[in-house]
């Protein structure tokens, strides 16, 4: 942690970066994203199991981008990113949103994070995405901090089991999802925290024509949640922030995970793996399955 603070401070002192985006501790079991431009403020930076946010979302925010922009051109931004968050960086680079050369990726050697703020870090409270994680450190980063420790074995229970839901008959699945989506209040926290939801104006905010009804009735909620999952198909890197941010506890990552599985199954594609890959959407293979087509 000290090393990170020192390193970040150096970056700012030497003016190598315009800002450092990291985490600060707020309370015992909670951190908050922080954007630091003053070198002395770097002492606030922390790295621990409560660094839940995917800070990559900030890289594409107009305000943050403005920090990096000056008359002389674009300066670098430093971002603290867990190895899993780096997949979002890769995806954003593929989608022309950020450039690697404008970035300084400070990664943490990660041994898992908690499922939500306020929980004690142990096997019961391990975040779902960490259960089968096998990238504890990243080679894509400019520098990694902390030591690699083992991820605790998951001893908790997931509320929803994807394979169980897959096995329900279609009508039951629709019932299940409708019930879940009906809880939605359209606060769009899922959209706000998603690094890949960077549209200047989300289609749900478009009125002519009205792509998705903004009302929070069953139909509007169903459309929003389906289209959200659709637009993230083959793009979502599985950071799970949407589900964590949802105040209504809708199991959003079920859809995301299912679509990630499908992308892999149908096209052998995994999002955020490498900037060399063509994106799933936007490319095609003549050999793509013709099974659906009469």
């Amino acid at each position, binding site marked *: 942690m000290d090393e990170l603070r020192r390193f970040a401070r150096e970056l700012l002192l030497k003016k190598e970066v315009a800002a450092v985006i990291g985490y600060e501790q707020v309370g015992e079991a909670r951190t*908050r994203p922080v954007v630091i431009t003053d070198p002395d403020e770097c002492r606030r930076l922390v790295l621990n199991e409560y660094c839940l946010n995917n800070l990559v979302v900030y890289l594409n925010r107009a305000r943050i981008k403005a920090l990096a922009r000056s008359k002389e051109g674009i300066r670098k931004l430093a971002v603290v990113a867990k190895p899993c968050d780096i997949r979002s960086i890769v995806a954003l680079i593929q989608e022309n949103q950020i450039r690697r050369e404008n970035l300084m990726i400070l990664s943490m050697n990660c041994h898992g994070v908690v499922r939500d703020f306020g929980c004690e870090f142990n096997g019961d409270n391990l975040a779902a995405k960490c259960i089968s994680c096998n990238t504890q450190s990243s080679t894509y980063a400019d520098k990694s901090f902390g030591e690699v420790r083992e991820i605790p074995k998951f001893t908790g229970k997931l509320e929803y089991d994807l394979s169980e839901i897959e096995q329900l008959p279609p009508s039951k699945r629709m019932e299940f999802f409708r019930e879940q989506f009906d809880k939605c209040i359209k606060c769009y926290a899922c959209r706000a*925290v998603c690094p890949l939801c960077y549209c200047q104006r989300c289609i749900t905010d478009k009125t002519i024509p009205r792509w998705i009804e903004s009302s929070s009735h069953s139909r509007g909620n169903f459309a929003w949640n389906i289209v959200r999952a659709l637009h993230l198909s083959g793009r979502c890197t599985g950071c799970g922030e949407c589900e964590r941010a949802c105040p209504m506890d809708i199991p959003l990552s079920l859809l995301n995970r299912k679509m990630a599985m499908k992308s892999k199954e149908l096209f052998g594609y995994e999002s955020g793996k490498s900037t060399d890959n063509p994106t799933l959407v936007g490319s095609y293979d003549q050999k793509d399955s013709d099974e659906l087509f009469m």
Partner: protein
Amino acid sequence: MTEEKLILKEDLLRICDDVIKKGDTLLAPGKSEYVIVKDVSEIKLDPEALPTKISFKSYVFPKSEPVLYYKRSKNDVTLIDADVNGRKIVVLGAKPCDTGSIDIMKDLFNWDYRDEFFNLRAKHFIMIGMMCKTHDEYCFCTSVGCSPVSENGSDLFLIPLSDKEFALRIVTEKGREFIEPYFRFLCDADTKRTEEVLSAAKNPETAFDPDEVHEWLGRNFESPKWDGIGEVCLSCAQCAFACPVCHCFDIVDEDYSYSEGRRMKNWDGCQFGHFTLHASGHNPRDIQSKRYRQRINHKFRYYVDKFGKILCTGCGRCSRGCPVSIDIKEIVSNCKD
């Protein structure tokens, strides 16, 4: 007129059962929201529980409701008013930081226009509040004039004396009307015990003085303090939608066939970038810091100026649920020189 009685938990549940049987709606705090109770066994009545993730606001001010229906014909449009559902709603075990919310919003919905949708629903609310015996780092009811033992907004108020007994205070006439048929379940109060319990209430520390905040906000519209928050906030509306008193809404017309449609009233949140986007493309609150400034000013200054009430109950929901851990208490506490 407060009158105190004693009631056993099982009797209280019997009353609830009767409410459900009559076909009225009974709401009680559930896992993350106030839920409609279908069976009394679901009722927890836990004074140690933290506030639910969102309040019962949607039962008085739904997240989406039609206000009218329209049908276009060749040269004409026909309108039909929407039918307001005015069923009785009993809220059991509402937190003191929630009970007052309807009163706070009422002023807004009856200011220049009397919102019949809100009023009719509010009229049918029976609020059974319950003393709160816990708080966490985000609670600050005491800083906005509320408290864990506040009866404000409650028609009836419960004070848990033990696992099995409650002191029941009849706060309003509406409360009395509701409880009268069940008087046989009530016993005489042990006011001394009640007072003991009340005085042992765990008050969250006062974090700020709303008057000072009000004064500071008046002077610091352009303070650089707003910038830092703007960088971190991601512009969702979790805070507004979880808030028991945020009441912004949007009106949209929605066709459901080529000639028919409805006009919907939907929750809206002031942190959304397009909340103030004009048709011209101009946006007076174009950046997040301006939007967050609006949020704080609206709650602690504008609403106070207009209606004499703080638009905040100190429940801490917005901070607890914030995906990026922005803490309203911390920010408002910092509203000083």
